[in-house]
Each structure stands twice: as C-alpha cells, then as structure tokens.
C-alpha cells in the first residue's frame, strides 16, 4: 500500500509537510507501506490531503489530516482497514468536487509524483513529442492545433495556431520559445499548480511548440514568488536532459532544444509579453510598442513566441487525442476546457477544470457548493485586475470568451473570486485600482496618471468624501485610459470600475449621497457599538482589542472609544452574545 501526501504550495501551507514528516518518522515500523508525494489535487479547502493507493487504484482519500493522525493512517494502510480512520475519510459530497470536472491541463495533477519523470512517462508522458518527431511536419502540428481551437489561456484568448504559424513563418535561424509563468493576477494559481504538480506536461508542450516554430532555445519565465514551482521545474528539466528529451538531437532526431528557467522579480506588468521580454533581457519590464510583434522581433530582436503555462499544458493531450477531440468540448467560439481558481466567499475553494459552455452557476453552486455560511451571493470577480464583477442576475452566463466579454468582465487567466453581501463594490474597485496604479510601469501617461487619478476618486468615495459628478468623472477617465494606454495592463485597468458602476451604481450613490457603505465595509463610514442590553461584561473584547479602545468593568456593559477604534472588527467576531453591532 502506498501513502501519498499532496504537496502543492497551498497543501504545504495548510500543514502537508508536517504530515509528511510525521508519517516518514513512523513508517519504518510498518511493513508493506511506502510513502510518496504528489502535487496539488485541487481541493484546497480539504488540505492537507493524504491518499492510499493499492497499485494504481485509489483505495482511500483522507482530508484535513493533521500530523498526529500519522500513526492511525499507517495502521490503516498496513491492515487495509479503514474502521479506525473513518472520521478522516473524504465525504461523498466532496468527491463530487472532482467528479464534476473534465481534466485535461490538470490531467496528472494530484495523481502522479511531480518529482519523477518515470511517473510522467508511466502516465503516457512524452508520447506526443515522440509522435510529432516521428513523422509530423511543422505544418501538421499547426493544423492539429488549428482544428482543436486552442486559444491562449493567459487572458487574451488569441488562437494559438496563429501565433505559432506567425513565428514559424518569420525569417531567421535563431528563434525563441518562451513560456509566460509570471502568474500575477491576485487570486489565480492554476499555472503554479501545473508546474508544481506536473512539470513535464509543460516541458512536453513547450518542446512541441519549439519544434513547430523552429526554436532551439526555450525559456520559462517564472514568478519569483513561486520557489517550489521553480525547484520542481528545474528538477524536471534536469531529468528530461538526462533522458535526451531536451538538449541535442532529441530522441535521435535532428531536433535540438535547450530549456532554462528565468525567475522574475515581481512586477505584474511582466505578464504583458513585450514587458516580459524586456525583463528577460535584464531591463525594467516596460512594454514595447507593437508592431513589430514578438513573432517578428522579440527576445534579443529575434522571432519569439510566447504562450501561457495552461496553453502549453493542453498541447500534448491535443496531439495524442487529436484536435477534433478537444474541439468537441466547448462552445462555438471557445473550445476545450478552462481551469479556474475558485476562491473568496466560497464553501469549496480550489482548482476547477471544466469544458467551456458551463455556466457560472454550475461552477459556483454545482462544484463550489455555494457561498460560505450560506450567505447571499453578490458577485463574482473574473479576470483579476483586468476583469470585472459579474452580478447575481447574470449567474447563468455561459463560460466562453464571447459571453463573458459581453458582461464587461473577461475570461482572463481564470481567477474566480466569489463575493457575498459583505463585500463593498466601490471598495473592490478601489482595491484593484490600488493594485494597477502601483503596478503601472509608468511608460505611458494615460495609465501612469489616469490610474492614479481614478484611485484618488475611488478613495474619496470610500472615505465618504465623494462629490456629485464623481461617477461620471470616473466613467470619462475609464474610457480615456482604455483608448489611450499602451499595453493590456492599462487598457483593461478600468474594467473593475466600469463593471461595478454598471451593476452596482446604487452603492456608489449611497457612498456619495448618503455617506453610507451598504456592505458595511468601508471603515470611515462605519462605527462599532456595544448594545448595553446584550453585553454581559465578559471583558473578552476589551482584553483582545488591539487598540485598547474598549473599556468597562467585569459584568457591566462595555463601551467603545470611537476615537481610538481602528475598525478591525475583532470585537464583532469575538463577542459570543452578538452585542456589538456595525452601523
């Protein structure tokens, strides 16, 4: 029996490493039990997760495991009896989180050992590159990708075959294939999961891309905040080299390709492809004017092709199964599957891969189990700082590029942040503008100054200092920035503001006209008060208040000193008697 501990970054953050260590410590006392790791299973809300495998068959899955459960699990594995660990077993309802998905990009995630090339090969890995090198021309590959309808999964949704073809057609012997793994959208982590859990899928997809465009060098630009992804990818590159799947004359053919990792240094704008190229060259990551496009003149002024991690993760599957099989999933304008990172006020958060064409409701209620604490759904934010908020009236919107675009949001890289009635929409817009204003590279005026001015207006609205005409001013600025900004970061920065105004204008008006925050989130517009009838004088809130703003004697009603209160809300969470109200 094999004990497998899921070790993605979020699993480790939830304690998976401690669980692994505890099992490792004790395992020598058990016979017939081995220990291994896998990557991210995608059920983040149940981490740490431990699986028992009998051969290739999943025998049992344990969730929310703690280090002290190690011995019980080992006992169960040795005896092949689950009676003693029944409390740790995954519930049927949670199994549905995975069974409702269709996994292509994530097909091996949480199943195979990401640190072993043998595990990838045993799962059918590197068959696609063998197929390509043993008789497919560059045009053949492009045709298959064209038939599949695969589009860039990083956000723009540009047809992959078209980019590959443009780079292939460009003149020159020296070409580069680049993978954009600078996953900067706050709230999206699917690229990290793929690299951490199945790095060879990325390598294989990139090899096929490199062969197709005629590149001899491939670079993966990884976010520096992803140390585990970098470590596992480096290990995978070394393994592939040792097996002649990278390097000179791959698999005995004329095709040669080297691959290396470049760690980014933290700049959201580097997700834009020309800014990424600048950063690769060791410069400030500021976008270039287009045209010329990277396909003609990119890295070191040579023809270059850039795709996102998830795009590459689909390639090997498409080659193995045919373009038609991929295109059979999805809608008229969006083919295949898409991975989403489901987070926020959701019961079951994690990674979800579904065929295009499902609805937002299918994902949020069907797979995600609805809103935390059964609160009321308010909106879902899609596409990160470049995207928008979609309100509950549009929950039945179909997930494809066109339908999502029509709502004012975008598909984006797949961040799906769910919000309930406690989220203030102008504050949400302010949050994103704060982000884009900080991350604006400063090259073009509309973005550099425009986002700053928008942030100022949103800040005053949230502080209760908004003026008549602020909404119209915001709208005017939004359109100017959309039209005038140089790159995608600036052009899409107004989206969170435009969509929140479009769907939640009443909240903006309440902030400006009545100086009220309907969601009771904006700290300048709320006060906390203790209801003296309900307060039992337990002193808990006074003891725990980080600002020492609460006073009162034991068993007597307490009072909050409003001038000292920092509005952290700690007292509301702590009070067992519901005596503290937010006004």
């Amino acid at each position, binding site marked *: 029996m094999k004990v497998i501990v899921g070790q993605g970054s*979020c699993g480790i953050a939830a304690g998976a490493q401690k669980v692994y260590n505890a099992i490792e410590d004790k395992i020598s006392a058990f016979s017939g039990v081995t220990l291994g790791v896998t990557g991210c299973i995608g059920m*983040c809300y149940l981490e740490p997760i431990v699986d028992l495998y009998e051969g290739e068959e999943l025998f049992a899955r344990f969730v929310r495991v703690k280090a002290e459960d190690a011995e019980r699990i080992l006992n169960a594995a040795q005896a092949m009896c689950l009676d003693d660990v029944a409390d740790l077993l995954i519930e049927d309802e949670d199994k549905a989180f995975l069974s409702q998905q269709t996994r292509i990009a994530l097909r091996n995630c949480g199943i195979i050992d990401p640190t072993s090339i043998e595990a990838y090969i045993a799962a059918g890995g590197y068959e696609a590159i063998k197929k390509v090198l043993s008789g497919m021309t560059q045009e053949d590959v492009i045709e298959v990708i064209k038939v599949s309808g695969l589009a860039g999964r990083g956000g723009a949704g540009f047809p992959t075959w078209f980019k590959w073809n443009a780079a292939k057609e460009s003149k020159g012997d020296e070409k580069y294939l680049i993978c954009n793994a600078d996953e900067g959208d*706050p709230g999206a*982590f699917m690229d990290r999961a793929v690299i951490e859990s199945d790095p060879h899928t990325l390598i294989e997809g990139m090899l096929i891309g490199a062969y197709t465009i005629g590149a001899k060098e491939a670079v993966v630009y990884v976010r520096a905040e992803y140390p585990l992804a970098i470590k596992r990818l480096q290990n995978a590159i070394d393994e592939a080299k040792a097996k002649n799947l990278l390097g000179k004359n791959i698999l005995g053919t004329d095709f040669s390709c080297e691959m290396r990792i470049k760690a980014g*240094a933290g700049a959201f704008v580097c997700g834009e492809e020309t800014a990424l190229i600048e950063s690769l060259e*060791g410069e400030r990551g500021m976008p270039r004017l287009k045209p010329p496009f990277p396909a003609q003149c990119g890295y070191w002024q040579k023809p270059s092709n850039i795709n996102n991690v998830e795009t590459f993760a689909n390639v090997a599957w498409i080659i193995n199964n045919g373009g038609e099989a991929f295109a059979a999933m999805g809608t008229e304008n969006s083919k295949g599957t898409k991975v989403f990172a489901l987070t926020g006020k959701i019961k079951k958060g994690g990674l979800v891969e579904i065929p295009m064409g499902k609805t937002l409701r299918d994902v949020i209620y069907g797979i995600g189990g609805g809103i935390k604490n059964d609160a009321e759904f308010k909106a879902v934010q899609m596409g990160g700082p470049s995207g928008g908020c979609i309100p509950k009236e549009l929950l039945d919107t179909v997930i494809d590029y066109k339908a999502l675009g029509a709502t004012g949001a975008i598909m984006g890289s797949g961040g799906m942040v769910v919000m309930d009635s406690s989220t203030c929409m102008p504050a949400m817009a302010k949050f994103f503008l704060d982000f884009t204003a900080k991350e604006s590279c400063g090259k073009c005026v509309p973005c550099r100054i425009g986002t700053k001015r928008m942030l100022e207006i949103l800040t005053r609205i949230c502080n209760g200092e908004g003026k008549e005409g602020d909404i119209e001013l915001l709208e005017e600025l939004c359109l100017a920035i959309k039209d005038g900004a140089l790159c995608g970061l600036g052009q899409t920065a107004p989206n969170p503001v435009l969509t929140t105004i479009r769907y939640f204008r009443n909240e903006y008006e309440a902030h400006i006209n009545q100086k009220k925050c309907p969601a009771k989130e904006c700290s300048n517009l709320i006060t906390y008060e203790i209801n003296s009838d309900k307060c039992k004088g337990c002193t808990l809130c006074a003891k725990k208040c980080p600002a020492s703003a609460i006073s009162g004697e034991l068993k007597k009603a307490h009072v909050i000193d409003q001038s000292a209160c920092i509005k*952290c809300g700690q007292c509301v969470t702590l009070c067992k008697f519901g005596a503290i109200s937010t006004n």
Partner: protein
Amino acid sequence: MCCNHCKSDLTLIEGVLKEYADQKGSLITILQKTQDIYGYLPIDVIYHIAERTGSTPARVLGVATFYAQFRLQPIGKYLIMLCQGTACHVNGSERIEAAIKQELGIEDGETTADGLFTLKNVACLGCCSLSPVMMINDETYGSLTPDKAIGILNELRAKAEESK
C-alpha cells in the same frame, strides 16, 4: 564608490560577478543573487555592480527599484509578508493589516525599532483557499483573524527573547 559611509564587503559577490558580469541580460539574476548574500541591496554594492557590468548606477538602480522583490534597506529578523490578493481582500486582510500595524507601530515597508519585524504587503501568495494569509520567513499562516495574527507575532517575539 558612492560615498564613504557604506562599507559593504564587496568580495562576497565576486563569484556571482565572475559568473554573470559578462553575460548579456543577466542583471536581474545578479541582483537576485546579491540580495541573497546581503539580505538587501546596499547602495555601494549597486555602484560596484554597475562598474563591473560596464553599466551606470542609474541603470542598475532603475532595475532594482522597478521590481517588488528588491529592497534597498535591511529587513528585520522576521519578514511579515501580508497577502493582499483578491481572495484575502474579500476575506478581510485589511483588518489584519490594521491590527498588525497597531501592534507593531509600523507602516507597510517599515521595520520595528528592535529590528525584529518588517511588514510588507504583497500581491498574492497563491494560498487563496486559506485566506486571509501571511507568510513569515517561509512559514505560511492561514485563516487569520486579528487576534490570531497578533498571537503569532507574540509567539515569535517570545521565541526571539528566549534565544537572546
């Protein structure tokens, strides 16, 4: 040399410079390795890198200040990276921030007078399902409340006291 005040031991990065100084496009890599060595980028080291790579201090400093990863000041013993990603925002990271600032008496980017804690707001740590999250020296703490966050700081403070 930039001034007479800073006296970093420049020999520490000799190996890094030997390997990368002549490789085009490697400035970010040099700065990353330099920061690993000194814990930050001392200004005299920046001048030294400029000289050795045949560049100007303005260009090196331009790159160093463009990216969030680089810092020009030393940090405290514990670097608190407080996640301000979307999921953490929705789950109340601002309240955690208010409580930490109040407890430590510092603002974002500052270090406490005793050199123990540095607070840094970061974009997204990618542990969205545990939000709100903070990371202190490679250890991740999830599902925070203001109370829990302050408890963690107190534990670390006690640990630092003990080891004195």
